[in-house]
């Protein structure tokens, strides 16, 4: 038996609903229909009254989740596409993220953002917005890259007393499979060494983990041993694991699917340069999507985001420096 990334998300929600009466799901089309991607399939029937269809009102959906959290519940909000969270941005940034600091009342909500590009989806169904949310205090930002993490991190997101932006990657939904659901997991905030190596460190997260691992395999054929760090959560960011890896390899390439101005890859490099300058044998590099909206056509889309080929090319260049 195997389980997909999407099924893991569904199973995690089913388990959270079964184990914690405070949990409910709120979002567009999540009820009988089971969600645009079927991440809530059958949950409406299994948990009567606790999987609630919402009008197309991201602001009101997230605002209501904050209210429910104040009342001690643990809402899971499904935003249909990460891109649509911008219409709920105010409630996330100004309401959810400030509540605890202002009032000492925690705001345990999970906002699931189906993120990232799939071919043919275009500018408004493809965005990766983790950088926006990671910038703001009061939020935890998760970017699971594996089936195991999709499951265990979502369960942890529900258990955490703070708002969690859960950036699940649509490209991984169907094709990424695991043999079984995990029984144990790394703690939240801890990065994972996805591949060991000694010549260079690639720090990445989300769907870019798989492109980076493919690049590392390609480079292994050329005799290079590439270490790959999967950040898992981008906020908090596990600086220690990154620094330890760079201490071993002396070279750092950061890869992210989001846009290049600022963001996670810039933050990782800033930290390594600030605290680990002496560890570096070459200037750290980063690779992001192009600084344009995400294009629709597959030919343009494939060139817009980093791929194993462009990552391998960037790595080769860095290895020669």
């Amino acid at each position, binding site marked *: 038996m195997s389980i997909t990334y999407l099924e893991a998300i569904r199973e995690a929600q089913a388990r959270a609903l079964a184990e914690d009466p405070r949990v409910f799901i709120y979002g567009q089309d999540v009820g009988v229909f089971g969600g645009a991607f079927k991440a809530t399939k059958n949950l409406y029937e299994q948990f009567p009254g606790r999987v609630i269809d919402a009008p197309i009102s991201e602001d*009101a959906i997230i*605002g*209501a989740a904050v209210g429910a959290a104040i009342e001690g519940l643990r809402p899971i909000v499904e935003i249909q596409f990460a891109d649509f969270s911008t219409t709920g941005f105010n409630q996330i940034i100004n309401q959810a993220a400030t509540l605890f600091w202002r009032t000492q009342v925690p705001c345990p909500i999970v906002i699931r953002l189906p993120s990232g590009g799939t071919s043919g989806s275009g500018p408004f169904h493809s965005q990766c917005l983790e950088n926006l949310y990671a910038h703001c*205090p009061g939020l935890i930002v998760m970017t699971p890259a594996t089936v195991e993490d999709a499951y265990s991190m979502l369960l942890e997101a529900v258990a955490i007393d*703070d708002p969690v932006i859960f950036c699940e990657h649509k490209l991984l939904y169907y094709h990424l499979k695991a043999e079984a659901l995990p029984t144990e997991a790394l703690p939240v905030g801890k990065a994972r060494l996805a591949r060991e190596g000694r010549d260079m460190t690639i720090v990445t997260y989300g769907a870019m983990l798989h492109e980076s691992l493919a690049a590392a395999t390609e480079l292994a054929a050329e005799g290079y041993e590439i270490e790959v760090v999967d950040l898992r959560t981008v906020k*908090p960011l596990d600086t220690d694991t990154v620094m330890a890896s760079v201490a071993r390899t002396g070279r750092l390439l950061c890869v992210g699917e989001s846009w290049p101005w600022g963001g996670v890859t810039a933050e990782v490099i800033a930290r390594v340069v600030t605290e680990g300058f002496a560890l570096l044998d070459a200037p750290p590099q980063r690779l992001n999507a192009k600084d344009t909206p995400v294009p629709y056509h597959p030919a343009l889309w494939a060139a817009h985001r980093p791929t194993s080929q462009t990552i391998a090319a960037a790595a080769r260049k860095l290895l020669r420096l």
Partner: protein
Amino acid sequence: MIHAAANREIGIDRLPEREQFVRAYRWMLLARTLDDKLASLYRAGKIHGGVFLGRGQEALSVSIGLALRKGDIFAPLIRDLAGRLAFGEPLLDAVRTYLGSPLGPMRGRDGNVHRGRPREGLLPMISHLGAMIAVVNGMLMARRLKGISGTVGVASIGDGATSTGACHEALNQAAVERLPLVLVVANNQYAYSTPTSRQFACADLVDRAPGYGVEGHSVDGTELTECLQVLRRAVAQARAGRGPQLVVARLLRLCGHGEHDDASYVDPKLKDSPLGRDCLKVAENRLLQEGWADATLLEAWRAEAVQQVEEAVATAQREGAPDPYKEDWRALATRHLCEPYLDVT
């Protein structure tokens, strides 16, 4: 001295009319007295940031506070001091927040009107006021999920907030979910300096009620008697399961947007119209006409209000300021997930 707890336990509607009216008037008087004091402190440079008064809106505001019971929810707007006090907010919460006392509910992290006690049903607004309505909705939805019935939530906004997308989304959401929400709109004719002619194009905001599938109520916000009746009816209907209620009050803001604003843009014709009447004076006149109070009693109530305010201000002024070196600069409840790297202290 008057205590909020009293009306919240009993339900003011069970009291004789004189008693209800007097109680409402005395909360209005206390609110006006504190507002005047805050304005003086602002002019004396004793308050950091803005001061936002409820002058002219006390009748509507107090009627909200008095229509609600213990266990209900109230998301006030910036001019709702009277309603907050009647709902049960301690006077000291207001004074401490304005003066930045570390002992106030916001401990210097937020100021002036941005105060509340969410666990006690009093929500601390964010500045994007329309966004508070959905939070009230969520609290009401949560109560329904928990099997708690019979509580009501009031969200209080002005004419300006009715133009926000958040307001539309939330009122529609409340209607779809048939929540016991009362949305109170204080149409005070100006959103900061913008007159209603530049804010909306419908004849009356209450006309929007049927479009949302909710019940609508209009009220003269200068008349305490009418405000008490209409708010009591709207809250009772929500409590009885008739779904969201939209209350639109007509009145005039008798002050600037904040104390930094001289409000020179307010049309003098409005000031001279019935909308420009001071609801506190209107209420006083009724007290005298009905023989429910005389000049001596009114003066005694004023003196008591002044004493309460002076004591609260003196208390808060002795409490000092928050200490940035002792401040816990962490924005997460899950302390171990705050990044030490970002801790600059």
